[in-house]
């Protein structure tokens, strides 16, 4: 956990203790979950357990709420979401190869996020860009006519841009 995360988490603990003694304290649960997601980008299990203890709400109830609402991520999400089109045209043109290359390069499976939290890998239904198959979509940008090498180049470009950002 980074220092800022720790500080924010400390503030959140204070907040939870503060609301706990107010009337209808359990009604603040969704607000607490929003704050947790702001800190981590998703809802880590151990933080939920901690919230359950402080707020005196059963963990089962908290997970019931967390899974009900689409807004909450239960797994960490990377800075960039890479979607590989698995539509028929892309599949025929070698999307599987592209996907395998990405899995190997990023070291994650479908739905997984890289250790540096830079990328989350996903499969997508037809993205409607069959003419330049196979395609991947990074965030909302489409890259087409890919092969293994081109795909890795794209990933490296994002890595470079991110490194430059961190330096600056």
């Amino acid at each position, binding site marked *: 956990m980074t220092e800022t995360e720790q500080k924010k988490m400390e503030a959140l603990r204070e907040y939870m203790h503060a609301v706990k003694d107010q009337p209808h304290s359990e009604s603040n649960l969704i607000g607490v979950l929003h704050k947790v997601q702001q800190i981590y980008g998703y809802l880590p299990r151990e933080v939920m357990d901690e919230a359950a203890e402080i707020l005196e709400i059963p963990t089962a109830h908290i997970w019931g709420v967390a899974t009900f*609402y689409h807004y909450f991520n239960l797994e960490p999400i990377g800075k960039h979401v890479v979607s590989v089109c698995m539509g028929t*045209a892309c599949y025929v043109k070698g999307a599987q190869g592209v996907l395998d290359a990405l899995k190997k390069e990023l070291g994650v499976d479908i739905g997984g996020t890289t250790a540096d939290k830079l990328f989350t890998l996903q499969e997508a239904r037809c993205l409607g860009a069959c003419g330049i198959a196979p395609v991947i979509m990074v965030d909302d940008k489409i890259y087409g006519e890919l092969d293994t090498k081109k795909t890795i180049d794209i990933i490296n470009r994002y890595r470079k841009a991110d490194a430059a950002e961190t330096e600056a």
Partner: protein
Amino acid sequence: MTRKTYKVTLCDGPTCIRNQSREIRQALEQALEKHSLSQRTEIHLSGCLGMCSKGPILIVNPGYVIYGQVTPEDMGEIVESHLAGGQPVARLIVKEDHLYNRFFRIFGDVDFFGKQMRITLRNCGIIDPENIDDYLSVRGYEALAKALTEMTPEQVISEVKKSGLRGRGGAGFPTGLKWDFTAKQPGDEKYVICNADEGDPGAFMDRSAIEGDPHTVLEGMIIGGYAVGARKGILYIRAEYPLAIQRLEIAIEAARSHGLLGERILGSDFSFDLEIRLGAGAFVCGEETALIHSIEGSRGMPRPRPPYPSVSGLFGKPTLINNVETWANIPVVVLDGGAWFSTIGTETSKGTKVFALAGKVQNTGLVEVPMGTTLREIVYDIGGGIPGGKKFKAVQTGGPSGGCLPEEYLDTQIDYESLAKAGSIMGSGGMIVIDEDTCMVNIAKFFIEFTQSESCGKCTPCREGTKRMLEILTRITQGQGKPGDIEKLERLGEMIQKASLCGLGQSAPNPILSTIKNFREEYEEHIHQKKCRAGECRALLKYTILDNCVGCGACKRACPVGAIDGTRKEKHVINQDLCIQCGQCFEVCKFNAVSKA
């Protein structure tokens, strides 16, 4: 281009026309000609300005001078004295009844605004939403002051009742009655809630209203709290609207520091405060009992009513829930009177309604029109008609809970009853225009996909029923429809409407049932002839190469699956077994030699 000195807006409403507004225009043009001012003056015709009793109306800008009951004979004097001499003609200026003026100031000279009347959005785009002084300058919080100092809570409720205002969230329940029920409940712990969980795909009027004029919503809620005897209000807003949330926070802070929220508001005995609670992406939370569960920190699932929230709502206490647009109307109703408000609109539906106009139409965006405006006026006069010379097919109102109305319903007046009678609903105000390129089966599938994934799963008819309907529709659009599918959809739809627990399920079949009713032949074509006339259902398309193929090979190179074969300079052929209907060959052919059917 020469700069125009004056803009003259002439009311072209039916009453004014009867009172010679057309003749007035002629006289005006002649007078302008005489004074050689034609080049420097713009004449605009506006839709009914709503000041019929003072008609014909003529407005001169800049200066915003309103002339009333003018005659063709007056034109000479107005042109000579005002437009040429800069001296308005005092005897013709409308002095009283400036009520309407507030709602027309910047409009009337742009086509898009001509038929609009902005009450809910009256300040949007005009004031700085982050500056409370701006709101105060447009008579902001005057309604609150009036309510607190001059009116009893009963009088406020009676004014809301008199206005005929009905809930703008979709169901159209009379707002005054709802207030009355809540006020009559015993106990001093009561709540007012603003439902800003706007979730219909394509609808964004609540977001715009809050982002453009957050104080109006707050003022409405504070008045509501005073009327029903609540000390606490909650704004339930989607987490996906960060700017709206930020502006509400700024507005609440400013209102507190001005003594408009908190203890003893404006020196009265009334204390009230507001809190923002965030939604977390669940469409069903727009339903009032689900929304209450969500505020309480639980899964947002609805419960059977009664008891209604006005009896047992948030934390089991009497609760008044209204939608953003409804709240935004309250300051106007209180300040200008229910009697005035009830002059706008139709017999059963009063005031205005904001629609999010989208789809195959020239001008898209938010439009606010008086109730009673026809669909045709919105689509053609405000929306500018269908782009690209395409043919109008249907207009869809009410989002995933609404229906599709074909051309013969275009002259339907917009009010709760007329839309329901036509087979759609007012809903929260989404309005999507559909042209001939859109497949009605596919659009029904799009909406049921949405409601199916948003069904909370509590009651079986909605959870299972929407899923079965989606499966059938998916089959039909993939060319695997079976005889009897339409009847099955109708049966299922009616059952889901009747047996579902909340509004989400009860209205989920509407897009399907209305498209079956109005476009049954399209369903039949999909099922029996495996044909999609709009060319949207890809699986039903068949691409073939025609005899005028020159054998250039462009399609062969473009085909992602290698389904096209042929020797150079000879006619090519598509192998239908391999074809995935991606349409690339159709796109690249320069000779129109690929047919799509």
